[in-house]
């Protein structure tokens, strides 16, 4: 990573957040920029906002949405809220994982194209089961339609 460019990016992000420097919001912006939280960026941030790196790491690992590893180009989230669960969302998850050779621990394909994860209720319960690809909602999915969508995205 180009350190100078990175430090400039982080400086700008921090400046956007005023005096209170809320870590969560700053990390969201960093993740928006890099699609994950690069270690180097977190160390730089710790110095910049005069906070311990342990605290930043602590916040980053508390929230589901932060990722310390690069995510795929397409982030697929399968809703496993109550409504989706009772309408069989897990078979969709399994179908996608099978198709992409992913697992509970291996969430991103080696080519960096797809990340597959579950998400607690998206609030689109009327359309269950749903999944999202980079925040676009796909309603009433089946294992077949989900794998078909992969082909489309490729």
């Amino acid at each position: 990573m180009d350190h100078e460019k990175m430090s400039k990016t982080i400086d700008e992000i921090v400046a956007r957040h005023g005096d209170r420097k809320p870590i969560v919001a700053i990390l969201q912006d960093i993740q928006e920029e890099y699609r994950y939280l690069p270690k180097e960026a977190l160390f730089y941030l710790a110095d910049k906002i005069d906070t311990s790196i342990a605290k930043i790491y602590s916040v980053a690992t508390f929230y589901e949405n932060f990722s310390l590893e690069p995510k795929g180009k397409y982030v697929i989230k399968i809703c496993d809220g109550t409504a989706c669960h009772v309408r069989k969302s897990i078979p969709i998850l399994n179908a996608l994982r099978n198709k992409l050779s992913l697992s509970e621990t291996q969430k991103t394909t080696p080519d960096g194209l797809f990340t597959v994860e579950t998400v607690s209720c998206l609030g689109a319960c009327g359309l269950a089961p749903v999944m999202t690809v980079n925040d676009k909602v796909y309603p009433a999915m089946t294992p077949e339609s989900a794998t078909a969508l992969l082909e489309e995205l490729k």
Partner: protein
Amino acid sequence: MKITDRKHLDQYRKEFLAHIDTQKKKVYVCGGTGCVAGGSMEIYDELKKLIEENGLNCDISLDSDACEGSIGLKKSGCHGFCEMGPVLRIEPSKLFYLKVKKEDCQEIVEKSIVDDDIVERLIYSRDGIQYPEQEEIPFYKHQTRLVLEDCGQIDAQSIKEYIAYGGYTSLEKSMFDMTKDEVINVITDSNLRGRGGAGFPAGRKWSQVKAQKSPVKYVVCNGDEGDPGAFMDRSIMEGDPHKMLEGMMIAGYASGATEGYIYVRAEYPLAVERLTNAINQARDIGLLGENILGSGFDFDIHIVKGAGAFVCGEGSALTTSIEGNRGMPRVKPPRTVEHGLYGKPTLLNNVETFANVPIIIDKGADWYKTIGPERSPGTKAFALTGNIVNTGLIEVPMGTTLRQVIYDIGGGIRGGKKFKAVQIGGPSGGCLTEEHLELPLDFDSLKKVGAMIGSGGLVVMDEDTCMVEVARFFMNFTQNESCGKCVPCREGTRRMLDILEKIVAGNGELSDLETLEQLADTVTATALCGLGKTAANPVKSTIKYFRDEYIEHIVEKKCRTGNCQALKTIYIDKGLCKGCSLCSRVCPVNAISGKVKEPFEIDPATCIKCGACIEKCKFNAIKEG
């Protein structure tokens, strides 16, 4: 353009209304998350194109000049009938079209926009009766939409429409015609109770914040609707954002706060977009900012996005998360009203609570109390999901019975199955059974039977639902979302989950049930925060009402619903088996054996219950049970 005083606002309101009156017809295309996912925005674009092609003026968001006889085309909020989406509504005829596709647009424009006809195949029909008007559909007919009144019937992205239809008059009234105490008195008199869970009286909270001496105070709106199966708040934020903002501003005025924060779940990007838009619009015309309408009251609102943690719905976790920390609840006292966001007195209510405020200020406490029971008046929005005919978002007066909700509005159980239970209030709620069908849904009645409204999720379960598995599902959620701070919740939920997993896997022992109850009792009594204290509710209520199912799983190693895979047995009905051997050939573990032309047999010890044989058998001789 800045609106600088009250007269000015009134003048604009009249102008906007006059503009709307020039619209011959108004078309509301649902822009809620559900319908958008179904393609409603493509429908919107297509309609716009076709309307213009038909030589009509298409009027969007009152931003163009008024033109007599134009067609108003609007992106509305969620209508609540998500399963039937994408939906659209046409006024003044109140026509309601369901499951609209792009291909339908041409016909809709020709018949119902240019002409006054109906596209029959797109209207709701049930039991042979057709319901062209939205309000006549049973799903809507039995509702009382107060908070959601405009949701679906107003342009969700236009502050002008909101103002035209009387929006921000309650803020005006509060700032100019009432003292702070009068505002709080109205809220107190109305008996409005917080819609986020425990039902704490809003007026009392407001006056406690007002009584604090601190010069800096905050209003915080909890939009972290984390309960799986609940999306009432999302719909309000997306569909009628200004109503909620107005409620927050009134709260700010009454309590002496000048800054507001809305904490929105990260999973609700559309809500963030609509709220951001609404706040910007309000700022642009001076309804947020300094010296609002010349009243001397300053107020601004910021949006903070959650980052994926259910526990942040808890008040102190939410405020510390806004500050940028790990969302771990803290011990109380001091309470949030004294020591909340950034250590300052904080008025924290949820989205639905704030959305009630402008209505109460407008119509008065006495009017409000005519809806629902005296001690929990008003309405409540519920997200109706699960094995029910009509899933969707509904709003009913507090005190409506469960039966009315499930059968009159929800249309009963899907597929003619028998009703078994309903999980109310999300993972921290409890389940209600047949014996509770006549129970009025309000804070106090539910508390008496060990359940709670929570944020208002209603998941309906039919006879085929295994209640032990339901408990396991919720416990899995709760233990996954436990913040990990206090021992009972962190360790207790995990151990309860372990036991439930053991039971559904067929390895449970009777002593496990006792341990489970002890754990549930300890966690409820000793956990640090409200979420921890209620974490064991699904376990407690399923044991209370469905103890026999637990015993069955443990002693007979049987799941009567067949939900628990591990407890299934697959057997061959000897009377039906022709001995064709197909099943034994498809079995991946060689569990089936026999002589050709004689009945085959399955070795239950080897069988992995994959079901491949069942699919393969041409004689339906292989059964589960």
